[in-house]
């Protein structure tokens, strides 16, 4: 609260600001009508992409991403340790 507006406890009177400063309004531009076309939505941070690699299970390729997501979604973590490249059925 600005000092000038504070109520003095002894006199129970409010004092007004000593000056009134006028502030120019910004140059007003004619505003375009609001439509879906001119609303830019804030994009959410992209979640790591899931892939199933020919299975019925959705996998994140990085265990660290999976761990983060498990915390967010209050789930457990399932990590497959494989020989070869899981992404390529020929090499798994």
């Amino acid at each position, binding site marked *: 609260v600005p000092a000038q507006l504070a109520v003095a406890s002894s006199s129970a009177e409010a004092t007004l600001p000593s000056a009134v400063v006028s502030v120019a309004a910004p140059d007003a531009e004619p505003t375009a009508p609001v439509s879906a076309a001119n609303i830019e939505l804030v994009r959410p941070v992209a979640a790591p992409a899931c892939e*199933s690699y020919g299975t*019925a299970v959705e*996998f994140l390729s990085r265990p660290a991403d999976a761990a983060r997501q498990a915390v967010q979604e209050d789930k*457990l*973590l399932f990590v*497959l*340790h*494989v*020989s070869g490249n899981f992404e390529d059925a020929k090499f798994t």
Partner: protein
Amino acid sequence: VNALANAEVGKYLNEHFVSSFQKVATFRIANGQKQGGNVASYFCTPDNRVLHIIAGPVDAATMLREARWVVEAQKLALLDSGGDETRFREAMRHAHADRLRREHRFDVAAAKGKGRRLNNQGRVHLLLAAAPLAKVEQVYKLVFEKVLGEQVSASPVVEARQ
């Protein structure tokens, strides 16, 4: 990996787990035949502490049974522990020791069954009864090399020339 193509397994895992994978070893392809290679499935808390492991490939029914067991076992352990870390660890130790006793006739507490040759799942229960909630990085070499008999390696898959 074939078990993971099963729709029921997929539905259950997607509902209860966030899944990922890690290459930890390699294999050779000679004359079109795969030599070596294996898989270990880890069921963990979000901070990478191991609740359960399936060592080696299994069918869909086994994958589903083990996934359901670990979900229920950890829920019961959470209930029993009342949020206490030490009691949660003890409850998971007890869960593995119990399966070891019932399914593999190996009693950790009484040291009964000592000398008995355990299969891969028996070894997993023994490991997790001895070291419940170990971090994945603390046990994965042991699981891949001592339980599955594979060498941990970052080498690429080698296709042998004919």
